[in-house]
């Protein structure tokens, strides 16, 4: 039950992009086409789930144990970067087709604030290992959902008559804001 609550909360109520405003740059950067949004989303799901697990271990096996929790941020960045690099190397060898699909997006995620955010939130919420992994995966699913929805809207906007002054990014930002307001409506669901 607790896990279900975590999932609903991470995907809808505390959606990473639209409510917590984490990972805004890929939200605007790779949402011009639904295809790229799906690619980025898949890569994020993959990395966030792994990162939640690894950073959990790093936090409790190293940082807490040796009384150096103030190194959290820097240690997490190091771990996530190394992890992404490692995954990329392995994928290239073992699954070229998956590597082709995720290719460009994997390195992009290395320094994504959403990934670092999920790692730090896991610790702040005092989740146990399983809860952390589930929260990581669910947050990434929420992230992907927001990306794909936004990409669909932007694809439609390409062919809509938009006032000249608002073409491109301005209208994208306005619609992002409206989407965000819509997602805020989920608060109080639980």
């Amino acid at each position, binding site marked *: 039950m607790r896990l279900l609550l975590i999932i609903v909360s991470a995907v809808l109520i505390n959606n990473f992009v639209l409510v917590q405003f984490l990972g805004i740059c890929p939200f605007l950067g790779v949402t011009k086409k639904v295809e790229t949004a799906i690619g980025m989303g898949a890569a994020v799901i993959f990395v966030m789930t792994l990162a939640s697990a690894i950073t959990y271990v*790093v936090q409790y096996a*190293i940082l807490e144990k*040796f*009384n*150096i929790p*103030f*190194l959290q941020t*820097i*240690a997490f960045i*190091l*771990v996530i970067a*190394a992890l992404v*690099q*490692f995954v990329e*190397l*392995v994928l*290239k*060898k*073992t699954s*070229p087709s998956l590597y082709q699909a995720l290719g460009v997006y994997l390195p992009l995620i290395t320094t994504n604030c959403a990934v670092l955010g999920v790692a730090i939130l896991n610790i702040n919420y005092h989740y146990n290992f399983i809860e952390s992994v589930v929260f990581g995966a669910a947050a990434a699913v929420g992230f992907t959902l927001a990306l794909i929805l936004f990409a669909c809207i932007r694809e439609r906007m390409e*062919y*809509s*008559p938009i006032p000249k002054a608002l073409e491109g990014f301005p209208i994208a930002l306005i619609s992002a804001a409206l989407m965000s307001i819509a997602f805020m409506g989920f608060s109080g669901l639980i």
Partner: protein
Amino acid sequence: MFDSILISILWLGGLGLIFGAVLAYAAKKFEVPVDPKIQQIRDLLPGANCGGCGYAGCDDLARAVNSGEAKASACSAMSGDKLTEISKITGTDSGDLQKKKAVVMCSGVGELSKRKFKYHGIENCREAMIVMQGDKVCEFGCMGYGTCVKACPSNAIKIDPKSGQVKVDESKCTGCGICEKACPKKIIKLIPADQKVQIFCKSIRKGKESKEICSASCIGCGLCEKQCPAGAIKMADNLPVIDFEKCTNCGACTEKCPTKAIRKV
């Protein structure tokens, strides 16, 4: 105090070292052998990833060139010296280079050509085509909704805001041919880059009919065929066809054309 500094340095440095070692080991262990020639060829290709060669981007073309599947001249944006350099790498002929440019073969836009109705839909030629083959009376002509402008990867195509004429900027056009495929009316054509004279009409209607619906249309009078000193123009289906091999770009045809449908690019 000193302890905590030392512990921090040791742990973080240690973690960095471990990760570095693991990554180095993984890089060796999971190394995918890549032919160094592919990278060399890739570096010589333009890198615009336009896809005009028929392959999925420059990386894919480099792979195909290396395996002998394609010739480097498949890329129309290549320069001559780069082709010879690629030939040196692969040890085979890279094919002849003929630089091309795109031309929009219709000048009957805006007020010049009659419209069947007023189109209020999506600003896209392909969408506009759905309703009665487009809003123009002349079904061969350019509707001017800019599908080619959006398709062009090098921003070479512009619609003149005053006349509505679709123009290709020769200095930017790489001749990739993406616009040729994007145009639903098949008005855009690739011609040799040094070709100056071109016919700007696709209408195969007879002269009188053409004249009624579009004042910029070719009327199929055949004056250009008679004027051409090199014998490069032949009439077919009420339209002149220019033989680029024979054409000397002298411009004799352009002077006599009554509707200026044949003119210099």
